């Protein structure tokens, strides 16, 4: 009997040892033999890679010499729920709190979404502010997550909206500076590789964790001055309303360095505000993106070319007629009845097409704009003033086009029309940059909207805009300024000029094709500069002319 007991407990002990031995073998298999396999499985399920989003650079405009922010980043939160983890009792309370705190940002059918227990991811509200998120977080709802993201904030409202552009939902800049300088603004996203807990929250444990910090995008300071920009937009609006035009653009540039100070853009499309715009074209910056036929403002450039080449002076005379024969065509002045001896200045004041054709003919044999004359004009227009080529401005840009003199299309007729700004497609930025060189002593600056960058502590690091080339001689430039101020004074527009400013300008109208026929009402342009303030402004809008004054 007792031996039996001993044998029975012994039997149990042996059974126990056998089982334990089996465990030892199994653990040896799992932890030693298959260690690699399970480590890999663990890594696959535990390790995550996270993108650390780089902060997008802010955009500043100038206010005098001080940069002021016009595009900021705002932290916003998306409220996400896991309907399986939400306490049934809290469900209605959660909906009530959401409605109370962030009613406007709630997604549709929140209650139904919360009751969808099959789902583990439901968005309850989007783009709520930090304050709203903090309030909600205090309520401690189970199974509710707050995901932070960033949206652009515009403290100046719609000021300069087409210059700034916007950032789309994917975080890419579109149009304006946001689009063209997207890379610089975006910075470089960082990477976090880490072991995480089951909610994907990174843990400090683990061997292969690594972190590459994000590099924030550059904060850009634009040359655009917010006051000038605002005035530009207001004046443009007034001018368009007065003229009943459909759209218009203004560009204000500092001729001393090519910086764009204001860039107004208005069309009836944007009257509802940029946010509501259904058509992307409201963001098109016409000044750099839409080539147009500039018209008589180009006379400044053709006379400057002739003066620079020494074939005429402002006081040279010629015999003016209403019309002139060019090859098989006849080209006429808009202003008739001025037959007789006419100075170049007179031709400029009255915007006489025959005058420019006559002047440019002198680059050739005197009676024709022959190939050498065309080559000279092309050299000035294209190579020096930069017409028909991209300027390199930091905005979306079209190149426009002028026909080369040796092409079939670049014949005498076309070049004759080009002397008064027709038969060519240029952008406002091209004309503005070229015009700056006419009045500043012949120095061509790359047109720019960028002053420089702003560092972490808010200091402006400006980059100097260098002269790219000499267009006309200093003497030609000085004569052009005299011609332009004289022209301005002879114009009805000078009545509104303030004393103490040196203002010169040239109007322009070209014929445009409307419904397949040439009409007199095409692009109306005006180009002028205020010398005292060293600011140069040019207005062009479809339909009529408008004056613009800087009152600063």
């Amino acid at each position: 009997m007792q031996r039996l007991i001993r044998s029975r407990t012994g039997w149990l002990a042996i059974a126990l040892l056998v089982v334990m031995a089996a465990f030892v073998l199994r653990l040896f298999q799992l932890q030693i033999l298959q260690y690699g396999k399970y480590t890999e499985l663990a890594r696959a399920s535990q390790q995550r890679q996270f993108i650390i989003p780089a902060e997008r650079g802010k955009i500043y405009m100038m206010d005098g010499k001080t940069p002021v922010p016009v595009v900021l980043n705002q932290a916003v939160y998306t409220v996400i729920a896991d309907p399986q983890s939400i306490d049934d009792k809290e469900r209605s309370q959660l909906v009530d709190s959401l409605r109370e705190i962030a009613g406007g940002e709630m997604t549709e059918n929140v209650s139904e979404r919360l009751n969808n227990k099959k789902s583990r991811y439901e968005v309850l509200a989007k783009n709520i502010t930090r304050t709203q998120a903090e309030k909600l977080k205090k309520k401690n709802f189970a199974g509710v997550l707050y995901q932070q993201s960033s949206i652009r904030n515009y403290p100046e409202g719609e000021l300069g909206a087409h210059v700034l552009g916007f950032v789309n939902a994917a975080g890419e800049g579109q149009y304006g500076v946001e689009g063209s300088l997207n890379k610089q603004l975006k910075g470089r996203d960082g990477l976090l590789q880490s072991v995480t807990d089951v909610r994907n929250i990174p843990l400090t444990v683990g061997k292969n964790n690594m972190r590459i910090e994000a590099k924030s995008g550059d904060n850009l300071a634009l040359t655009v001055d917010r006051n000038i920009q605002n005035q530009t937009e207001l004046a443009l609006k007034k001018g368009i309303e007065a003229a009943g035009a459909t759209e218009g653009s203004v560009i204000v540039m500092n001729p001393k360095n090519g910086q764009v100070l204001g860039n107004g853009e208005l069309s009836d499309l944007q009257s509802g505000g940029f946010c509501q715009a259904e058509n992307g074209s409201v963001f098109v910056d016409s000044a750099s993106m839409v080539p147009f036929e500039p018209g008589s403002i180009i006379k400044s450039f053709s006379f400057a070319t002739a003066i620079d080449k020494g074939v005429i002076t402002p006081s040279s005379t010629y015999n003016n007629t209403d019309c002139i024969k060019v090859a098989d065509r006849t080209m006429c002045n808009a202003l008739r009845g001025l037959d007789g001896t006419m100075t170049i200045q007179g031709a400029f004041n009255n915007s006489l097409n025959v005058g420019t054709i006559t002047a440019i003919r002198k680059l050739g044999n005197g009676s024709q704009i022959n190939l050498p004359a065309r080559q000279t004009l092309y050299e000035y227009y294209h190579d020096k003033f930069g017409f028909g080529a991209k300027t390199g401005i930091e905005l979306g840009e079209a190149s426009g086009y002028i026909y080369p003199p040796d092409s079939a299309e670049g014949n005498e007729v076309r070049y004759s029309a080009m002397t008064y700004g027709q038969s060519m497609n240029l952008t406002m930025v091209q004309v503005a940059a070229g015009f700056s060189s006419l009045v500043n002593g012949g120095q061509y600056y790359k047109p720019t909207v960028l002053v420089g960058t702003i560092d972490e502590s808010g200091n402006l690091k400006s980059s100097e805009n260098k002269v790219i080339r000499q267009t006309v001689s200093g003497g030609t430039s000085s004569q052009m300024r005299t011609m332009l101020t004289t022209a301005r004074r002879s114009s009805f527009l000078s009545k509104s000029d303030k004393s103490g400013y040196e203002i010169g300008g040239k109007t322009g109208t070209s014929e445009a094709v409307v419904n397949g026929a040439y009409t007199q009402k095409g692009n109306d342009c005006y180009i002028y500069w205020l010398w005292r303030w060293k600011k140069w402004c040019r207005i062009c809008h479809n339909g009529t002319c408008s004056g613009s004054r800087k009152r600063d």
Partner: protein
Amino acid sequence: MRNSIAKNRQSIAQPVRSHRPMYQIVLYMGLLLLLGLIVMYALGPQRANVMNYAYGTNYSDTYFFGKQLTSVFIAIVAFSAFYFTPYKWFIGERSKYILYAGFALCILLFLSGAVLHLSFAQETNGAYRWFQLGVLGSFQPSELLKYGVLLFLAGFLGRRSQQGKLNDIQETIIPLGIISGLSLLMIVFLQKDLGTGISLIAIILSMILVAGIDWKIFKKILAIVALCGLVMIFTSPHRIERVMTFVQGDSHKGNSSQENKNYHIQQARIAIGSGGLLGLGIGKSVQATGYLPEATNDSIFAVMGETFGFVGLMAILALFTALLLSILHVAARLPNVTLRLIVAGIFGWIASHVILNIAAMTGLAPLTGIPLPLLSYGGTSMLFIAAALGLVFQISKYTSHKALEEGESGQDLSGWRRLRRTRYASGSRI
């Protein structure tokens, strides 16, 4: 440790004088409890984090460690209480009342939960297993029932054994079958708790085996148990699921609850496997941050595998083996049949918990939801196991100095020679 009053009382009642208890039991138990505390200290913050997220609770980082510390304290109190309360209190007539109380509470739980829907009956997966007692924590009546069955059957089989009727079908086997059947009905069918049911079966089988039942009858009982087991599995869809999950392994895809089980097993294996030889180190468990379900309870062995590695798990297995062998060592040397059966039952109890838990975690057996004794977070399990060990510790004072041979009375006469301490065989033989 020697309590003079208890000693006097026992020395009168027993043919064997009390002597020094088997201190190894306290040592192994203490080491296991300490290990559990260390791991809980490291896991607590992560656990609190996971719970706070999932259930919106507001546990502090030290909450789980604090609770575990409290549980350990209560366990030590229970251990001491069962050590100092004379074992005579538990056997005889009183064991019957403990059994009845266990039955009654199980029925009460079922009625208040499934019929009356009272809030203190806590529902888990459609079954009611716990009384939720607010501040006092939760209480699992099946543990009490297990205790009642153990003590009652020890007395019953002890009497039959002394009467020489141990193998009598009418007198012994049928009443045994009725009591076992009823208690298993409560646990397996009313509470749907197969894990506790299996440990109850292990308790009963250990007792009848050690009681010296005829091998033929024992084999028949085993056959009946196996048959009942198969019937139970195939009458319950969720058990079929568990077995399917186990048999088909990782590749099996089924409904969501099965996928959860599958996920649990897979994550436990990842935890153990990725621990390697030396483990990731204390506080560096990643699987416990929410990947592994029940990380502090049923899955603590897997977390320890990840934390301490193969070496650590070997130490834990060694501790459990040593503890269980000590219990068997005591059982083998007890002249009193009832006491011997109590100790054998406790062996079956603890051994079944250890084996079922570790087998499930290592993927050698299906998941049964049984905690790992002394290491898992959870008051009830720890309380009852510590109490049982306290009882074994007390009973270990009444062993003869060596394993009993035929014809020996087991009377230890060394005390008569006024030796201060009883010498006893230590671990050389079982």
